[in-house]
């Protein structure tokens, strides 16, 4: 996958239009995990917007995001920073070849390999 395709894929996965962001920083102002994140919620949006995805794919913040969706809830522009974080996380997991898990496989691997956030995100996402 080329970088351009990767960017397009991230945009598609996140399902959010990062260009709507007006750089107010309310997401980072609200984030309860802010201090632990090496890349802050607002930076996820602006870096994806600028195509700086290499840093995103290597960051630790995707494992610190609590998927609490406070940023999504509070964003005045309807941008979903947490969805971008989630898209990056999904991409990283897939790049590690961990895609396509069958339901019966989940219990044995859930603790070690699948970050809890992914499950929480999935519940939040599909319960809406």
């Amino acid at each position: 996958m080329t970088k351009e395709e990767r960017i397009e894929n991230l945009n598609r996965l996140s399902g959010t239009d990062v260009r709507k962001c007006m750089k107010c920083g309310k997401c980072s102002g609200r984030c309860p995990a802010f201090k632990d994140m090496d890349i802050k919620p607002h930076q996820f949006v602006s870096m994806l917007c600028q195509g700086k995805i290499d840093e995103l794919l290597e960051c630790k913040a995707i494992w610190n995001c609590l998927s609490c969706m406070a940023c999504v809830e509070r964003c005045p522009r309807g941008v979903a920073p947490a969805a971008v974080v989630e898209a990056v996380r999904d991409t990283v997991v897939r790049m590690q070849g961990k895609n396509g898990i069958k339901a019966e496989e989940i219990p044995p691997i859930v603790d070690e390999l699948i970050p809890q956030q992914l499950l929480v995100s999935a519940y939040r996402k599909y319960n809406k």
Partner: protein
Amino acid sequence: MQRIGVFICWCGSNIAATVDVVKVAETIKNEPGVVFAANYQYMCSENGQQLIKQAIKEHNLTGIVVGACSPRMHEATFRKAAEEAGMNPYMVEIANIREHCSWIHKDMEETTEKAVVLVRTAIAKVKLNAPLMAGESPVIKRALVIGGGIAGIQAALDIADAGFEVDIVEKNATIGGRMAQLDKTFPTLDCSACILTPKMVDCAQHEKIDILSYSEVEEVKGFVGNFNVKIRRKARYVDESKCTGCKICMEKCPAKKGANEFNMGLDNRPAIHIPFAQAIPNVAVIDPEQCIKLKTGKCGICQKFCGVGAIDYEQKDTFVERQYGAIVVATGFKPIALDNFNEYGYADNKDVITSLELERLMNAAGPTGGVLLRPSDKQHPKVITFIQCVGSRDSSGCGKPYCSKICCMYTAKHAMLIREKYPDTEVHVFYIDVRTPGKNYDEFHRRAVEQYGVDYIKGMVGKVYNENGKLMVQGSNLIDNEQITIESDLVVLATAIEPEPSVRKIATLLTASIDTNNFLTESHAKLRPVESPTAGVYLAGVCQGPKDIPETVSQASACAAKVIGLLVKDKLKTNPCVAQPDENMCNGCGQCANVCPYGAITYVDKEFRLGGGKTEIRRVATVNPAVCQGCGACTVTCPSGAMDLKGFSSKQIMSEVEAICKM
């Protein structure tokens, strides 16, 4: 049989260089119905017009076609010439053989051929033209201003100064509007009341201005120059002609626990009250929800104490009907409700306030007498945090998608005034962008930063919470890429503004267009910014879009100029190219009225003869020619083909199509 004359213009060499004008005239001469054809160097010149006039008289022409430049250029010229020769001006058609022919094609044969077709097309149309008369409608020389804020006051004063009668209808008990509530005004920091109240007094004393306070527009009929408006005068339970404004009733009233609207509910007022000291009219009003006498029948203390017998508990709403030539809408704004923004803790913390509430807290006539004390414990706040864009620029659905425009400036003003009066106070401002275009505006904002040391933080607040009696404001500082928490004593929300909600009802009454944010739509965003597309309706102030006081006053004066321009006319000439229904075909379905953007179409029950002495009553459409602008939307919508447009009738356009295709 029509007798058509055709005149082909050379336009110097503009047309003649690429169109064989002589050949065109020769060819056209043989067209059926054409009795005269000529060509001339400059048809629009005095001599050219003379040629037309002479031909009309000599050949007894019934219609003419001028093959020349665009009708947008000289249609009016040739119509006038025809009129001077005794021909109806609407029997003139223009074939555009310059812009649409000679200027864009190069091959002589091709252009000549096209010119012939264009002239033929115009002939085909003119044969079906009918003489039209521009109608006239009288202008009632009186204006109505809806809303008595600074916009309405300014518009009323300007119109009245030009010598026309003006009525201001204000729904509250006093005029003055939002500006009366403000403390100081940017960028000069002069006291709002000091500049507003003289204007209010001018209004009250002006012999041409009638203030109908505590009143609302109930019904509007008619059209430009001729509106008929029904106004509800709400019962105030006080005789306006007797009350002297002595306020003894306010002292004696036992029901003192009403939320004081003028002070944004920050203190209380009695049931019978005068909204504020400089109210115009300076007449009391009773709040029926609160008055013990009106609720239980027992009390009547104010009546006992009133020295002039002005109190009347039996008063009922009354209606007045008046005629106006023009209507100015100046209904103003209100801050939005903050129900969707619980992250700022407005509902839970007394010390989280809106900017308009701060305005009252800093005002000498406000609940604290101008001393800045926070609402919860009446202490001086030492750390004050301002949050901008609360509900503005919010496309998520919680707030308003637009910029409220005034907040950047008033927040700078508040920050500056606080630092000036209480230098020991720490002031922080969270902003997304600072937008201060305008004369001396950015300088004003920079003064707050540079001279008064206000701490501007680029970032937005995520939440405000109460911890041990302190307001913790948690937000981001984007420049330093930090999340910060400021321990504050007072939090001020720069709340978005929205049009006063009652404007929607007024827009419906006036058939004035309104957008999804409840702002009234102007006729043209750039070139007709103070006119509603509905003729005779003008817009001033925030009802048209967010704006500050200087802009509001400019717009109000612009409105007044437009109103005066209308009212000086004795009669209005109406465009005769308007829609006309064929009553025999109309089935009264109502489709045309639905698509009419001007509300020009109404329905009447009309009696039709059926023959044999029988009659029937049917509902048919009628078009008010003074209101119709002639767009033709109704003509296409009409399912029975009853509606047609004069000057652009279906038959005319059909025959044009035919003439073009027949080549």
